[in-house]
């Protein structure tokens, strides 16, 4: 359908803007005093944003009956993975200079990194199975597998919460939104399964 294609194109271009701005900022030396930290924070932030956007699709669809929105969920999820990958690579290259042993030490020793890495690894199978062939092959199990997105989002928020020094206001806000996104699902499931149908 033509309209879907246009929306997808606009969405993809918009989703690449933050990455493009980072690349431009590197060349114009405009990312502040600590560009690596800035890139790390920005890519992490956008990974969370797109992950949350993908989790918002179902509730939005159900409340607004705008069913077409489901066609954009895969792209949102893939952009979450894209930014999470950039986030991971920035850290691996610049904080650990590609030293796997040093990276693994951090992963196993530092709880906020353990959970961040876990969240990233959970997104990996989701990205790999994000195509029609996989959806057909996995059938019902595909849906089950993709519930890992919930866990990845929880992991992402906890990762953020555990790394801030004292000002937890921003991770708190993410946690509130996540609670709403997951809470509404829990409520609908509860209603559907346990409450008598009217």
């Amino acid at each position: 359908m033509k309209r879907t294609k246009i929306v997808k194109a606009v969405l993809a271009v918009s989703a690449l803007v933050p990455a493009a701005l980072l690349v431009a900022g590197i060349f114009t030396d405009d990312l502040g005093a600590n560009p690596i930290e800035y890139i790390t924070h920005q890519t992490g932030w956008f990974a969370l944003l797109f992950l949350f956007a993908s989790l918002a699709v179902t509730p939005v669809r159900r409340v607004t009956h705008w069913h077409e929105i489901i066609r954009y969920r895969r792209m949102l999820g893939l952009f979450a993975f894209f930014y999470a990958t950039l986030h991971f690579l920035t850290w691996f290259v610049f904080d650990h200079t590609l030293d796997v042993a040093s990276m693994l030490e951090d992963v196993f020793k530092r709880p906020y990194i353990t959970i961040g890495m876990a969240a990233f690894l959970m997104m990996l199978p989701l990205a790999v199975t994000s195509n029609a062939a996989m959806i057909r092959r996995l059938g019902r199990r595909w849906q089950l597998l993709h519930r890992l997105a919930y866990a990845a989002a929880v992991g992402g928020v906890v990762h953020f919460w555990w790394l801030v020094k004292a000002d937890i206001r921003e991770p708190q806000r993410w946690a509130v939104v996540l609670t709403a996104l997951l809470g509404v699902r829990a409520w609908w499931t509860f209603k559907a399964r346990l409450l008598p149908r009217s």
Partner: protein
Amino acid sequence: MLIKTGDDIHSSEITPKALYLRRREFIQGMAGSAVAAAAALAPSAVGRAAAQTGQKLPNVRKSPLSTDEKLNDYEDVTTYNNFYEFGTSKDDPAMNAKSFKPRPWKLAIEGHVARPAAYDLDEFIKPFALEERIYRLRCVEAWSMVIPWVGIPLADVIKRVEPTSKAKYVEFVSLMDPVRMPGQRADVLPWPYVEGLRMDEATHPLTILAVGVYGEVLPNQNGAPIRLVVPWKYGFKGIKSIVKLRFVDYQPRNTWQLQTPNEYGFYANVNPEVDHPRWSQARERRIGEFFKRKTLMFNGYADQVASLYTGLDLRKNF
């Protein structure tokens, strides 16, 4: 792996500040546009704000205690700040401290001293000779800078106020004023900010009260009008906008220790072998470099200060 250590940079390679501040003019001049002329007349917002607070300080002596490492840019030093009184993001202080008025300023000397009193800051500073001290600054967040402070040795100040034998520690208190310091309206930290030093740390020749940076009056976002600099300790010991020095017989409870006692202690000596409970302190990112470098014991000041801590368990007294 190519890791720039910075050890091979000579002071001759340091860009003089005057040239550095004109870099935009230079770049725009290369573009060859007419805009360049206008840009030269109207420097960037950062440059202008600095010019207002940044009056040139007279008669500043050089010090043999300075490092000859490459200085961090003036812009980095004045736009990348941890100063929660003006917000918790690194760029908050430069924006939110713009209208802060650090004059007139009273400095109170209290506790076990011969003559407790409140002084006008400028009167108080006048008798002391200003010195430039180029120090490494290592933040507890694992980044570092090299900053040319201008200040006075705290030891000289202490000598002048004549502490009694009961004075074992100095407690420092920051300004408490949520109207002028908007960050204090959020209780991210217990306000006002408090710090402390043992008497021998306070009187150590490396410890200074800074009133300037880059030869100019201290910008608001760096802790105007007067702040503490203790180069072998993590940056959070460098309390800013000080209104009170209290000479006490107990170990003061400093703000970050009050906030999270298992992560931040009283001593806060830079130590690559004692990690923060959540992250490693073995390496740091020098602002201006991309890869991390090794953190040095006592931030590279071990020769001068290690003897202060003989017999002290640095793992317990972090």
